Every structure is written in C-alpha cells, then in structure tokens.
C-alpha cells in the first residue's frame, strides 16, 4: 500500500485547482487520478467562450481555461495519472486505482473528491415511447461534435433549457443543423439569461416554457416527438399534444453530482444538492475525505469551481498540519425561498463563503443569514434566479444561536 498525503479523484477544473493550491501551500506528496486520456475534464469539450471572466478577467474557451491549470500542474511537476480510474474508496481511505500498469492501492492521509457531475438522461425522466437512435444528452452531443468531430443531428428539438442545451442549440446551428425549438417544463428558463439571449434569441430559436416531450417516435432513428403543455404541477395537459418531426432530441434536463465512490466510502449526501454534506472546510461526514466542485453541488460557472477547490486545498492543508481539526456540526437551516446551502454545517468559529440557490425566480430581495437574533450575513439582490448560484461571505458571532438562511423582501 502506497502512502501519500493527498489523493485527488478527478483531473477536471476542481481537481486541477486543488492540486496547484495544495502544492503552492507546501503539500507536495499528492497525486491526481484522471480516468480520461488527458487532464481537463468536461472543459475539454466546452469550446465556446465565457470561461474565466471572474478569475482571469478575460473570456476564454473551456480548453484554454483548463490549459492554464494543466500547464501549472506540469510546471510544478505535480504527479498525475491518466487513463486511471478510482474504483473504490473505503471509509478508512484505502483507495483502489485501476491503471494501465495494474491495480494500485493508496492510503492517503486525505482524499479530495473532485469527480464532477453527470447528466440526467431519458431514463431519469421516464419519457414514454420507442427507443430509437437520435436521443442524446446535450453533453453527449457536445462530445460528438467537439471531441470526436462527428455531426450527430440535422433536424433538432431540445428538451430542457439548461445552459449546455442552449449552448448546443447555438453550436448545432453554426454547424448547419436546424434547431426547431427548445421546450422547458418549468415556467422559467433553467439556464442563465445571457444564454437565452446569445444562444437562442440571436438565432431565432424559440423557447417554449411549461412544455415537455410526452412521447418519442421512431423505429431505428428518431422520427419525431410529441410535445404537450404542462399545468402548474408540471403534469401534461391532455388534448394539448402536438407532433413534431425531427431526427434528433437533445436532453438538457439537469446534472447530478457523481457520488458513487463517495457513497461507498460512507460519505453522507445532502438530498437537495445530491452532493456530500460538508462543513466550511469542505470536509464530508468521513474524516479526511473532502469534496469540492460539481461533485459537491452543480455550479453554473467554472470560475467558482476553481475557487471552491482552492478553498478545499487550504482546508486540507490545515487538516494535515494542525492537530485537532474541528469538525463543523452546527447545521444551517434553509428558510423561506432557499433551495440549498453549501456548506450545510459549520464550526461557527470562522468566516466562510456560503453558496446557495433560491427556490424560484425573485426580484428585489435580500438574502439574510441569521444566527439567533444576530444577522451574520446579508446580500441585496435586484434579481435572484435558481439558475444563478449565489455566493456570500458570512461571519459567525460568539454564541450558539440557531443558524438560518432565508430570502426577505
């Protein structure tokens, strides 16, 4: 069994940022394990621009953003394995890795979970109908076009207005496909407003809210879909069915943190984020196991993934050097209008960054964090959308008052 200070599971934006920051903090006995042939994670296939505006003050493509971290990893000589998959993490932090050279077992002092997320599929929605080819998740279609250089579509309908779906609507249009429309089951768009404008409106692609696909038709290849309007409880309204012929249905219906390994390690998940339940040091319920990035909760901006992973790195550094690393046990309650928070619990001893999402679109509101009677964090928002993660600094005070985050008018 090989000893190691930190093993980082996944070489995407979170894993790369964590590795660089750990190394810079003097923790050098680390290893990144990446299952793909090259580092970079999902950024490799995100060739559109808009990455790095917060971090670098310029608009980069995904591969360029990843490259800045990969070059730093190589410059510093941080060890990494590619084509290597972690198959098991035990609660005692024994990590099994399948590599080209054979099976390896590591016993690191700390594990950083940075596996990212995966897409919800047709199976998760249980759309009735036949099972022809031509039904892809947005990320799969993106991989076909941007990584494998194959055009998977001509006449396209998109279900779900997630950011990747809208970005694929533009991408498919630029490459010569005809995108008929985007249908969204919710009464508001799931993705960022800027993507509604620059990916749909710019190309005259209509967005139908409160609509969904209720049947898939086709024998070998997709021939068409049935679209229905839905009521306020998101149930299809009988009699509103319309048939649209198309050869491709792209699904952009949500992302789920990829936590099979975490569950195996005994990590407790938050049912709202589907990621680990962590304290402000990004430590999970299993001591020495930390999580950040999309595996913790789905982000809308990679810049914040990098930031979160760097905060994780600093906490892991402290965990390795300090004695008696305090575990956060004081829960933060989600009050009115708040869907989730990360961290879910804190020590209450230090300032931290709180990430949260609101439950529905709202205007002119204030996000308020209370500890008993004291307001320990406050942020005014002209508009708050579920599509946009909100981040704010929170400074706990002395005392053991109940912690709550809520949206006030």
């Amino acid at each position, binding site marked *: 069994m090989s000893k190691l200070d930190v093993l980082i599971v996944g070489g995407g934006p979170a894993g790369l940022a964590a590795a660089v920051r750990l190394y810079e903090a003097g923790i050098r006995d680390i290893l990144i394990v990446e299952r793909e042939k090259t580092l970079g994670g999902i950024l*490799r296939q995100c*060739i*559109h*621009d*808009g990455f790095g*505006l*917060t971090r670098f003050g310029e*608009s980069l*493509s995904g*591969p*360029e953003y990843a*490259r800045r971290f990969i070059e730093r990893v190589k410059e510093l000589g941080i060890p990494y394995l590619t084509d290597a998959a972690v198959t098991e993490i035990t609660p005692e932090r024994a990590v099994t890795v399948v590599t080209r050279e054979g099976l390896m077992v590591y016993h690191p002092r700390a594990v950083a979970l940075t596996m990212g997320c995966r897409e919800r599929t047709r199976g998760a929605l249980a759309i009735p109908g036949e099972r022809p080819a031509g039904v892809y998740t947005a990320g799969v279609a993106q991989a076909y*076009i*941007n990584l494998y*250089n194959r055009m998977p579509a001509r006449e396209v309908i998109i279900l779900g207005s997630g950011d990747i779906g809208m970005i694929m609507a533009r*991408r498919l249009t*630029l*490459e010569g496909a005809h995108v008929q429309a985007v249908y969204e089951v919710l009464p508001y768009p799931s993705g*960022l*407003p*800027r993507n*509604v*404008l*620059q990916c749909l409106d*710019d190309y005259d692609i209509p967005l139908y809210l409160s609509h969904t696909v209720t049947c898939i038709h086709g024998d070998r290849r997709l021939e068409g879909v049935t679209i229905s309007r839905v009521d306020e409880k998101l149930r299809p309204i009988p009699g509103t069915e319309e048939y649209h012929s198309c050869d491709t249905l792209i699904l952009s219906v949500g992302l789920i943190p990829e936590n099979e390994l975490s569950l195996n390690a005994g990590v407790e998940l938050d049912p709202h984020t589907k990621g680990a339940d962590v304290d402000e040091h990004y430590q999970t319920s299993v001591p020495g196991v930390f999580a950040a990035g999309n595996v913790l909760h789905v982000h*809308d*901006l990679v810049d914040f993934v990098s930031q979160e992973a760097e905060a994780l790195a600093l906490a892991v550094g402290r965990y390795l050097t300090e004695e008696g690393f305090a575990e956060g046990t004081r829960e933060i309650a989600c009050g009115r209008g708040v869907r989730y928070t990360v961290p879910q619990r804190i020590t209450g001893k230090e300032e931290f960054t709180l990430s949260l999402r609101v439950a529905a679109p709202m205007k002119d509101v204030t996000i308020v964090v209370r500890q008993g009677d004291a307001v320990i964090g406050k942020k005014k928002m*002209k*508009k708050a959308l579920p599509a*946009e993660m909100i981040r704010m600094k929170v400074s706990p005070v002395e005392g053991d008052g109940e912690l709550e985050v809520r949206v006030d008018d």
Partner: protein
Amino acid sequence: MTKTFTCIVCPNGCEISAETAADGLCITGEGCPRGRTYVMQEMTDPQRTIATSMRVEGGETDLCSVRLTKPIPKARIMEAVAAIHERTLKAPVASGSVVIAGILGTDSDVIATKDVAAAEA
C-alpha cells in the same frame, strides 16, 4: 419607447432598460459601466463572438476548435463561420495561435483553442 436588454458581458446577466425620450436616451438597471456600453452597442450595432471547429490536414484529429478574439457584427456571424469552414489548417496547430488574422476584414482574429499534433506517420 422602452426596450429591455439582457446584458451578456458577464454571467450576472443584468436586465437593463433603455428609454428613448425626446431629450435622449435613459439607461437604467446596469450593474456596472460595461452594461451601459453593451446596451449602446446593442442598440446601434450588436456584436458577438463565436466558437467553431476548423479542418486540419495531417493532424491527430481532423478538426481543431477555434474562437474569435473580439466580437464581430452579429449579422456577419454565419458569414464568418462559412469563411472559417472554407479553410484547412496544416498540423501541428498550437493553442492560442492565430489561424485567420482579421476575419472578414474586421479587427477580430480567429485563434486555435487547442493543440493538434501532427499525425504519427
């Protein structure tokens, strides 16, 4: 007349209103000065950047991802994509290298956004 814009300069996506009155333009709702500039631009000459792929000859892959370094007039996007698709690069291609200088006579360059090594003989 009041028109509402969604600013695309950054992910905040501010909703900005522009009201044309007899005595000029009144812009409200912008979170920063860049929003004001964006709306002025959007009202006179909307501009966008794009990303696509370009053919590569003799490379380990057949295509290389590329993007524009600066926005170009929105109306010329499909023309720019066609101009990019017309050309073929020779491998190796280095990320960041200019593959078309001044696309369509604008001051926006097309740059490669990934490395494409030469195919092994």
